[in-house]
């Protein structure tokens, strides 16, 4: 087995919680049952052991071995409480799977009841459920990674795969005004899309900060919301935030760091410090703000990518 697969299993054993490898539907036995009844339950449910439970409390645990022993002694009519193991080793549902590996693998327990923080029985884990659970996790994380890789590959090659004299990709997002619960959602999606397109991380960061400031401005200052578009070309990215809101009275004033018209409730949320446009300017390679009172506002921001980027030559 190649080394990296061993590490993946080891990692999963430590990072996976017991609750995701346990069987949640536990067959439980009542303390009033006889060993003969226990035997029937085990046969019918095809299990080789089960906890004995009264209310929320685990009284003991019985295995097939206990049933056979009772049978040999001719005590199948005796109560289950006589033959069960009383000292029950349990494991908490938020413990990591390594704990089960230690108990089952090293100490020889066949099954461990799983309990929540209050000690209530929530499941049972055996070597079988554990292995199935881990295999499922491996499969899931593999598929997730592969899918992400393929999507990123496809997206990042779009400019090479599409043949035209000039290819650009335009993303549009609608931003509602005063909808603070969703403020930033467009920016979050734009950031993720750019990452998927394979944009260099420093550019992604600058765009993310700028578009987020612009989106927050739409939420706070327009009465009608607005639209954000991102026009992506191989060598540059243009971001526009357009609204048909009240417009801006004094364009020079709003560009001053610290100037803000945001109301108190916005400031209470940590916004409205008057740094938005300054932040955008700092992040971008070019910024243009067009507005007049009553005529809406348009903010264009340009980022240069690749060889055109101002930082590119310095870094090289």
């Amino acid at each position, binding site marked *: 087995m190649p080394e990296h697969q061993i590490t993946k299993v080891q990692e999963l054993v430590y*990072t996976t919680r017991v609750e995701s490898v346990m069987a949640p539907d536990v067959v439980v036995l009542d303390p009033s049952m006889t060993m003969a009844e226990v035997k029937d339950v085990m046969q019918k449910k095809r299990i080789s052991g089960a906890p004995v439970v009264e209310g929320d409390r685990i009284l003991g645990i019985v295995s097939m071995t206990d049933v056979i022993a009772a049978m040999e002694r001719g005590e199948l009519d005796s109560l289950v409480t006589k033959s069960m193991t009383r000292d029950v080793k349990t494991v908490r549902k938020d413990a990591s799977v390594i704990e089960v590996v230690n108990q089952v693998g090293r100490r020889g327990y066949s099954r461990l009841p799983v309990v929540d923080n209050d000690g209530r029985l929530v499941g049972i884990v055996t070597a079988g459920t554990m292995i199935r659970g881990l295999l499922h996790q491996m499969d899931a994380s593999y598929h997730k990674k592969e899918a992400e890789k393929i999507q990123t590959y496809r997206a990042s090659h779009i400019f090479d795969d599409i043949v035209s004299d000039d290819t650009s990709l335009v993303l549009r997002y609608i931003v509602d005004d005063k909808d*603070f*619960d969703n*403020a*930033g*959602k467009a*920016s*979050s999606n734009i*950031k993720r899309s750019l990452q998927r397109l394979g944009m260099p*991380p*420093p550019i992604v*960061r*600058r765009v*993310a*900060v700028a*578009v*987020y*400031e612009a989106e*927050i401005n739409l939420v706070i200052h327009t009465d009608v919301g607005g639209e954000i578009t991102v026009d992506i070309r191989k060598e540059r990215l243009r971001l526009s935030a357009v609204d048909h809101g009240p417009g801006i009275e004094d364009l020079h004033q709003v560009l001053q*760091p610290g100037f803000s018209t945001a109301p108190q409730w916005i400031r209470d*949320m*940590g*916004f409205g*410090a*008057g*740094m*938005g446009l*300054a*932040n955008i300017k*700092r992040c971008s390679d070019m910024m243009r703000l067009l507005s007049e009172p009553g005529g809406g506002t348009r903010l264009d921001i340009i980022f240069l990518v690749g060889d055109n980027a101002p*930082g590119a030559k310095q870094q090289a």
Partner: protein
Amino acid sequence: MNIRELVEILSGRILLENHSLDLEIPRGGAADLMSDVLAFGTEGMVLMTGLTNPQVVRTSEMAGISVIVFVRDKTPAPETIEVAKEAGLTLINTGYTMYEACGRLFQAGLPGRGQVKITDNSW
């Protein structure tokens, strides 16, 4: 300093775990002003803040911040945790004040960003 050490130093509680606790945190910062977060936030940073609304998480996501520490034992609303789940951030809270939380981490060797001027254009 990794996340595990950070939680220990702050006697903190992990509210949402989205990173390995062994993840190295390169530097820290503190702010209640979201524009400050956007101005000095860098990739992988830990942010100390007294605000618990969902926008703190969104802002941090945009600035590339990985871990948020809520000071004075403030617990964020379920909406905030929901946004953090989606954005892949780790959330911690601590009983210390903002000043002391920062002081403890700085003393333990976690650097900040140095001087960040308003007109700073370097990334």
